[in-house]
């Protein structure tokens, strides 16, 4: 996609190397220092906002792997978040509240669902892929709404944050913040490693020219399925974090609108850059909160903003910054 193309087009090699390391370092540093800033300025709610941004950033990074590198536009990522979240909720309702149980189960269930549905999805391409992923997301959504013993449409309150080996460490908001930051870091590193690996190169090649990859001898579908399952698992992790952050699970977590918002986050930041997914999530959620504080009709501003970003800021915010750097910074 645009971002990856710009990165590999041979623009100043130094710039790219710098961006590859400096940008994520800065981003993670900002996140790491946020709680200290919040404490100094007595704005505790910033920790909560930051956690929420990171929870969605985890999923957005996985989605960028699919959309930006594999060329698979999935409108069903929210389903995995929902599955992970509901695993935590249901286990908690049944008395099992330890992360050592709920986290692996959440990820496993999401990966299983991704595998079963992925087998059908990777047989399609283009808009068909979009629609089939959306369809599976909707199916999970409808199942969740009919789960009467677990709140149904009302959703389910999670009694307390997950314990880790019985230790109530996540109860403290700041501790949970850093736990989420750790997860985001792990996800980011995993995806970075995947992209530069052989697996990642096959994916990228398949997204640009599937026929060529098939001719070389790769079973493209298999690679795409693996990517889809990985993204699903990460979505499950994200769901675990969301359930703990809000201490509440609801079918709304799995609706296609949520999937759409994740895609917007990825595009906004810069598709195909991974860093863009994190930045995009932050910008989207902050803009949503800031704008909705200013006016009830914030979407009247946000909608055209999106259109403008697509039309003029190819490569999202990262692309915009790179363009500005080239134009106004030293050559």
């Amino acid at each position, binding site marked *: 996609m645009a971002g990856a193309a710009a990165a590999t087009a041979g623009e100043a090699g130094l710039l790219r190397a710098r961006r590859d390391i400096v940008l994520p370092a800065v981003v993670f540093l900002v996140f790491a220092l946020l709680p200290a800033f919040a404490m100094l300025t007595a704005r505790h709610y910033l920790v909560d906002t930051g956690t929420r941004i990171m929870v969605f950033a985890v999923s957005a990074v996985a989605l960028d792997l699919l959309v930006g590198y594999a060329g698979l536009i999935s409108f069903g990522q929210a389903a995995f978040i929902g599955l992970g979240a509901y695993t935590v909720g249901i286990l908690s309702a049944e008395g099992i509240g330890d992360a050592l149980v709920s986290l692996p189960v959440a990820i496993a269930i999401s990966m299983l669902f991704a595998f079963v549905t992925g087998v059908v999805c990777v047989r399609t391409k283009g808009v068909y892929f979009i629609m089939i992923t959306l369809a599976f997301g909707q199916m999970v959504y409808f199942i969740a709404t009919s789960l009467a013993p677990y709140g149904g449409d009302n959703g389910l*309150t999670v009694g307390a944050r997950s314990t880790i080996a019985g230790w109530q460490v996540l109860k403290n908001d700041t501790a949970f913040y850093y736990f989420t930051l750790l997860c985001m870091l792990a996800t980011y590193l995993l995806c970075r490693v995947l992209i530069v690996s052989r697996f990642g190169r096959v994916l990228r090649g398949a997204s640009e020219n599937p026929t060529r990859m098939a001719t070389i001898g790769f079973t493209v579908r298999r690679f795409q399925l693996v990517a889809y399952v990985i993204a699903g698992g990460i979505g499950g992790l994200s769901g675990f974090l969301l359930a703990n952050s809000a201490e509440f699970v609801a079918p709304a977590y799995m609706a296609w609108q949520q999937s759409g918002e994740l895609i917007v986050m990825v595009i906004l930041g810069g598709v195909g850059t991974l860093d863009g997914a994190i930045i995009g999530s932050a910008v989207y959620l902050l803009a949503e909160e800031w704008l909705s504080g200013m006016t009830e009709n914030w979407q009247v501003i946000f909608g055209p903003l999106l259109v403008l970003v697509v039309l003029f800021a190819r490569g999202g915010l990262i692309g915009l910054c790179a363009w500005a750097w080239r134009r106004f910074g030293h050559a």
Partner: protein
Amino acid sequence: MIKYTPMLAVAAACGLLTSVANAEDLKVGIIATLSGPPAVLGTQLRNGFQLAVKDLGGKLGGLNAEIVVADDELKPDVAVTKVKALIDRDKVDFVVGPIFSNILGAIEKPVTDANVILISPNAGTSTFAGKECNPNFFVTSYQNDQVHEVLGQYAQESSVKKVIIIVPNYQAGKDAAAGFKHKFTGEILDEIYVPLGQLDYSAELSRISAANPDAIFAFIPGGMGVNFVKQFRQAGLADKIAFLSAFTVDESTLPAQQDAALGMLAGSNWAANLDTPQNKAFVDEYLKEYNAVPATYAFQSYDAALLIDSAVKAVKGNLADKDALRAALKKADFKSLRGAFKFNNNHYPIQNFYLTKVAKRADGKFETEIVKTVFTNYGDSYAKDCPMK
């Protein structure tokens, strides 16, 4: 959050002259659905509260009132974030809202755990009326089941023998069906659960027509209700089958339903033509200010403001003494728009319930009018499970 600072500005100006007078403000956070089609209801909730504060001179209990409004977008996780921001960032003393039961389910714990008072002027789930009642949680509306029981009782006492129930397939819908069946022991021909958000009822109306009941009981709120009522009338069923409903034909949907809803029956704890002087004044003022007839959402949040006012007055503005504040709230020593008002031990109201009918006003707008009182001083059935005294 949209801040309402005009009152604060005036107060501050006065404060410059009389420096000691208003040492403290009172902050109220309103959480309601203000986007999407259900925004109609959230807007009424907000309007009602703001009107009350305006009538009280911008003060609640003698303290200058600052209102911070948050939109929950009908998303539980968004609601939780916004409510936490209201508590941590804006440091509100009271949270008023929400409209919807699922939002209430999400925000009740964060608000009450932070020892902030939560007053719901609409959602009244059974969960918090029974075992999970909370000293920090008050309701100025009703317990959801009660309204449905009104129609069950009416149907039981009338010549209705066969009923079809039609509700949306979510928790509130299931509660509605259960509430109706508490009081009606006749024959239920069918219970139809429609997907939330469904707008075309051709399939369901054909079933109803084929089964030919004496009456239907419908709990179909919002835009769904607008469609259902119109299509019900269009299918020619309104003349053959009695229409008993809850929250389906009220002042928020009547402007769209218009003549299609004339004569339809509903259950409520209030009607626009309720005959108390304070209610008449309220309806007239709401009409003048917002050019619409108020619905229960507006009147109940108006009452919430009056409730806060009375409690803060009782503790003489000392909001730090939470126990005294809670006791004062529980006493509910204010003149409710609906007349008699008392809290049950679970902080849900004990009040009268009426059978209402849709009618056309002299000015061409539509409203609900009281036909008869069905329950007097009626408490909900979950209060006995609540450990609070």
